[in-house]
């Protein structure tokens, strides 16, 4: 049911069950076909056309790059300034640190610094890897950092429909968007409308309606959130599960309205705890929904440790159904 909720049909086409991964490439394919200015830049991506993920005719706009994240990200920014609409594939999110100058100093600021002369229509894609024993150099979830950089839009799509809709909307957006994919979702399927399906920015999706506790779940945590909601429903506790879908802009209204009804807020965030996205959401609620809040705001996050290699240590770190159930139990 989370899938349907995430895929409001826009009437343009039939609904198919496809994977998150397929949805990513549908978005690329459609936007590249629609607009010749869309180009792809990233490592090893000549595979996209060669493996049939994208149509072979697009080959000339797929730039399979050297391993030079800051260079090719900045190149993407320059291309965006001069007429292209690049999608820069940073592959794994930990590589974003190498491209921070291009993203934060350049992409995010150039419209502003030029007094609006320029726009920077660029999309950065990055995937966040979990539970694969990829260890500390390949397991970060750095979206909270980028939320602190004005000028960027930050998306964390959680369903096939949303990743398609967000990517398409991002490619058409005149501002830099960083799309964080949750790698654990890549091979999960869900309903996706065919054709021009766009997901609006700044509009949260209520994945499950409820009345006792508001559960804001970020990105790939929808699954554990909904499962926890199901379990707790069996125990007479009704959870409202909200997926913000984009963190910048963030849909304050939907979250605050829900908290106003429930008086309880739990935030599930797969990023590290300190200054994660959950901190911002908690701060907003503590300022603007304070009078309706009846219980402490609880964050369920990945603790503040680099991600270890051994599954014995890694797996228990991520927010789980049990963690959420326990957090909610605290509020009674």
């Amino acid at each position, binding site marked *: 049911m989370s899938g349907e909720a995430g895929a409001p049909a826009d009437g343009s086409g039939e609904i198919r069950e496809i994977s998150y991964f397929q949805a990513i490439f549908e978005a690329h394919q459609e936007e590249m076909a629609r607009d010749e200015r869309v180009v792809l830049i990233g490592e090893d991506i000549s595979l996209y056309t060669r493996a049939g993920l994208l149509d072979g005719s697009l080959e000339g706009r797929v730039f399979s790059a050297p391993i030079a994240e800051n260079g090719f990200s900045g190149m993407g920014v320059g*291309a965006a300034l001069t007429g292209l609409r690049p999608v820069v594939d940073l592959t794994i999110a930990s590589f974003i640190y190498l491209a921070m100058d291009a993203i934060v100093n350049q992409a995010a600021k150039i419209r502003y610094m030029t007094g609006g002369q320029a726009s920077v229509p660029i999309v950065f894609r990055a995937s966040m890897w979990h539970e694969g024993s990829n260890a500390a150099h390949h397991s970060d979830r750095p979206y909270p950092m980028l939320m602190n950089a004005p000028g960027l839009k930050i998306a964390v799509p959680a369903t096939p429909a949303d990743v398609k809709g967000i990517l398409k909307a991002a490619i058409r957006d005149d501002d830099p968007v960083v799309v964080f994919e949750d790698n654990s979702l890549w091979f999960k399927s869900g309903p996706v409308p065919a054709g021009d399906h766009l997901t609006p920015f700044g509009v949260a999706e209520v994945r499950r309606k409820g009345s006792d506790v508001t559960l804001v779940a970020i990105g790939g945590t929808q699954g554990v959130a909904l499962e926890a909601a199901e379990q707790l429903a069996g125990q007479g506790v009704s959870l409202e599960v909200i997926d913000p879908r984009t963190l910048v802009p963030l849909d304050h209204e939907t979250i605050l309205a829900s908290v106003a009804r429930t008086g309880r807020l739990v935030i599930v965030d797969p990023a590290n705890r300190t200054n994660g996205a959950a901190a911002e959401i908690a701060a907003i609620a503590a300022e603007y929904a304070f009078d309706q809040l009846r219980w402490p705001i609880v964050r369920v996050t990945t603790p503040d440790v680099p991600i270890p290699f051994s599954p014995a240590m890694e797996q228990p770190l991520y927010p789980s159904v049990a963690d959420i159930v326990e957090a909610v139990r605290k509020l009674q």
Partner: protein
Amino acid sequence: MTDALRIEMYRRIVRIRLFEESVKKQLAAGRIPGSVHLSIGHEGAVAGACLALNDGDQIVGNHRSHGHPIAKGAQLGGLMAELMGKRTGVCKGKGGSMHLADHSVGVIGESGIVGGGIPLATGAGLSARVLGNGCVCLCFFGDGASSEGSFHESLNLAAIWKLPVVYFCENNLYGATTPARDVLAVEDIAVRAVGYGIPGEIVDGQDVEAVYRVTKEAVERARCGNGPSLIEAKTYRYGEHAEGLIIPVAYRDTAEVERWKQRDPVEIQRRRLVEAGVLSDERADEIGDEIAGEVERAVAFALESDLPDASAAFDDVYGRPVAGEER
């Protein structure tokens, strides 16, 4: 090289010089906030390189790039107003000295982050290649910037895809207070071209015509699909790293400064044109006066202009305002 072009070179050099001298005065008078990195001494390199471009071509500058938009044909009023933080500034007062973009003449960005502009120029090259619009991008940076990873990454990217970019290093022998010889493993930055299989040229940056010739060749190579080049212009800044900045110890010889001033780009071109009979001394003086007038009008325009409203700080963060918390 036509006489008209040679005179235009002189005109642009003088325009930069007089603009910058005025900037120095406006700063001292407290009319320009912050600090400024002046182009004085670099005019030959800057003007010679920019004149090798077509109007539709692009440039990317750095923190020391007041001269570059001027060389590319920008109006002085918007630049001076920008430096004074006025709403009529070319960037509405948001960019200031280190960020004098003027998209109307192809000045697509200046980066206060050393080396930050080099990938941007590379991207303009990518656009030119994909859009097939025949544009070339000229990328300015300093000797200091050539130590940044962005230099290496960009030259490699442009070389493999034969992007129409000319990388133009203004080697003024210092990065802030640090002599290039102390932080550069090689004497000539141009030799680094070898690592990317592209042409690397050294040119006398005080000689605007020499710079023009070398750059023109590189621009033509780029435009024909033969890929990027690296040009190193040996030049010198006459003033401090940043105007107003007090540096507590001497890091360069006054004799060195004087030696370079003997080879002043304004004087070199003026003398050359006068000696060749292309320009009379009187006409040269007239040009100076005309440009002085231009600069005066720019200052007047900037001084008359209003400061932006404080609320303008909230515009231009995004193309369309983004929903979110009210402030």
